[in-house]
């Protein structure tokens, strides 16, 4: 006996989700795909089909390869550090007996801050002229000027992104840690396992579905959602040191009005993320234990 008697009712229920997906994901993606084969002037008065030339121009430009490389580095740094830090702190908070709710609330709070606001906060803290962190660094004898020093600028946006994405990771780890049956840990203790052994042989395998999920999410975050941070902190500079792929899509498309190239870049970005996600599912997922 089917749950729904009316055969159209299920379609009705999933319709909103389908419509949203079509309208906000599939349609723009197809438009971008189509646009990437055209050259278009700023006001959209002329379209020329130019085949793969937009892609050719991109791949012939050194700065595009630079963008891809620093984006890969950025996503690796952000994904790994966010995961590591969140897991470490979640494990500690899980052992705290008193005020654990308070700790958790405080640690989850940054997630409520919009990326642009997070960017502004970090910019103020590290502003070479007026930032408190720059002041402290200068007391320690370190010359901080991320407006000119590309490495410092890169580190700064990494910190801002990790800080922002940390809460989300933390939230998931805390939830999964609490879902681990106490009996398993007790059994391990009785068998003589020390803290490290309990973590490595019991907790870590049980956390692996969460870790895997977060790894995928973090990579996607680093690729797509860091626009606000780059825009507010560095605008891609200095000397393109923080010109992440997603920011370049924006600045070439909206500031440069080079729509064809911007579309081609978003298609490449999409392909990279699809490729990375498939890769993670093919290889990393084999190490995941689903209960």
């Amino acid at each position, binding site marked *: 006996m089917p749950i729904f008697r009316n055969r159209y009712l299920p379609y009705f229920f999933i319709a909103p989700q389908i419509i949203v997906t079509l309208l906000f994901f599939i349609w723009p993606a197809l438009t971008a795909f189509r646009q990437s084969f055209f*050259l*278009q*002037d*700023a*006001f*959209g*008065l*002329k379209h*020329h089909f*130019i085949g793969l*030339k937009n892609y050719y*121009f991109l791949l*012939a*430009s*050194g*700065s595009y390869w630079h963008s891809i490389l620093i984006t890969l580095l950025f996503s690796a740094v952000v994904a790994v550090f966010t995961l590591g830090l969140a897991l470490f702190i979640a494990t500690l908070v899980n052992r705290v007996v008193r005020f654990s709710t308070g700790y958790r609330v405080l640690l989850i709070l940054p997630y409520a801050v919009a990326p642009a606001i997070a960017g502004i906060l970090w910019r103020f803290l590290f502003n070479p*002229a007026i930032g408190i962190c720059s002041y402290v660094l200068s007391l320690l004898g370190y010359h901080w000027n991320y*407006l*000119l*020093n*590309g490495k410092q600028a890169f580190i700064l946006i990494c910190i801002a992104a990790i800080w922002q994405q940390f809460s989300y990771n933390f939230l998931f780890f805390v939830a999964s840690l609490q879902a681990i049956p106490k009996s398993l840990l007790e059994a391990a203790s009785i068998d003589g396992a020390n803290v490290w052994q309990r973590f490595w042989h019991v907790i870590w395998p049980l956390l692996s579905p969460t870790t895997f999920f977060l790894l995928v999410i973090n990579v996607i975050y680093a690729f797509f959602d860091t626009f606000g941070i780059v825009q507010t902190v560095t*605008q*891609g*500079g*200095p*000397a*393109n040191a923080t010109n992440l792929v997603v920011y370049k899509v924006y*600045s*070439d498309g*909206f*500031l*440069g*009005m*080079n729509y*064809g*190239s911007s579309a081609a870049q978003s298609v490449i970005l999409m392909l990279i993320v699809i490729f990375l996600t498939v890769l993670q599912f093919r290889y990393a997922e084999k190490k995941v234990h689903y209960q």
Partner: protein
Amino acid sequence: MLKYLLLILSLCFASASAIQAKTRIVFWHSMGGQLGVILNHLVKEFNDSQHQYVVDAIYKGQYAESLTSTVAAFHAHKAPDLVQVFEVGTATMLSSKAAIVPVYRLMKDNNIPLSSQQFFPAIGGYYSNTKGQLMAFPFNSSSPVLYYNKEAFRMAGLNPNKPPKTWPQLEADSKQLLKAGYQCGFTTAWPSWIQLEVFSAWHNKPFATQGNGLLGNNPRVKFNYPLLVKHIATLGRWQKEHIFEYGGQESNAIALFETGVCPMITDSSGALASLSKTVKFPLAVGYLPYWPADGVPQNTSIGGAALWVMAGHSKHEYKGIAEFLQFLAKAKIQAYWSEKTGYLPVTMAAYNYIKNQGYYQRHPNQEIAIKELNHKPPTRYSKGIRLGNYSLIRKINSSAIEAVMSQQMTAKQALDKAVKEDNLLLEQFHLSIQ
């Protein structure tokens, strides 16, 4: 109850129709802060001077944002009547023939005389097509000058009435300022505009082929010539010696000058209005420095913005726009705008008007930019630069300067690389407008 409702309703309609009786002209601009106040004053004067039109001046954010908004509004068939576009967007606007109404045609259709000859050659020429017909209305034009802190000069034992004329003199003065305890000698706003583009005009060197893009629509940049390589390399060396302090792209460096950290800055003449308000030290203006050689300096080229008339509006609106532009071109209005803001008087009539009133004798600081612009009759390579994908090109060029200042690349490497990347963008632009 019903009676009141009807009364209110009829009042609403009455006031709505009163507004509709005047033709509304939407004018998008990027004049923030003090400049916006001065512009609104002009707009109000126009609105009060007649009863047929109301110009509605709306601040649309910085130049790049405003241009993006205009494009989006054009796609949605809601483009403004008049929009202020910076020189970076000139090639884009010129090549979008169906999106704009050329100013010369607008004026002809409405029988209002206005020719490119009324403007200074370096200004009118920049906004004209190859036939010399005015395509946009030059509104706020500026030229880079050297601002300096007179008090700092006095403290360092330099003559406060004698700013450095050449780059070697500026180096010597900077060393003196460093000795007197200043952290740096000078900084620059708009690095790629001033240190690459205007630098080329000032030294009469080609920035791009086809007369810097004014004589054709398929130019290629070639600014990696020896003098400019030497200049950027020198800035890189000065950065190490603190003679120069890089202060960021666009106008970010102004903070270094305003706070008294660097006693000299090369910046747009349009910055004078706000600088006079913000700095606490006696401010003076000198000529943009140059490297001494035969025939140098030539003349500076302009930056700033022009007003473009958008296509797709009614005859009434166009009549109104034409009258508004005629109003803005009046010598008296130009004089007010120039005196208050530091932008150049764009017509010769306005310049003479200001001069005859003895204004420049009282305010010598404000005459420097116009003297630079008219230092010599402009050549093929000193009338300005018109490139497609210009904003992206500026970004690449700024990055090149940053790469030299942070010692990642030599000046030669950085400029060669920038030229190569710029030319890829120019090739794309040419394809897109075919």
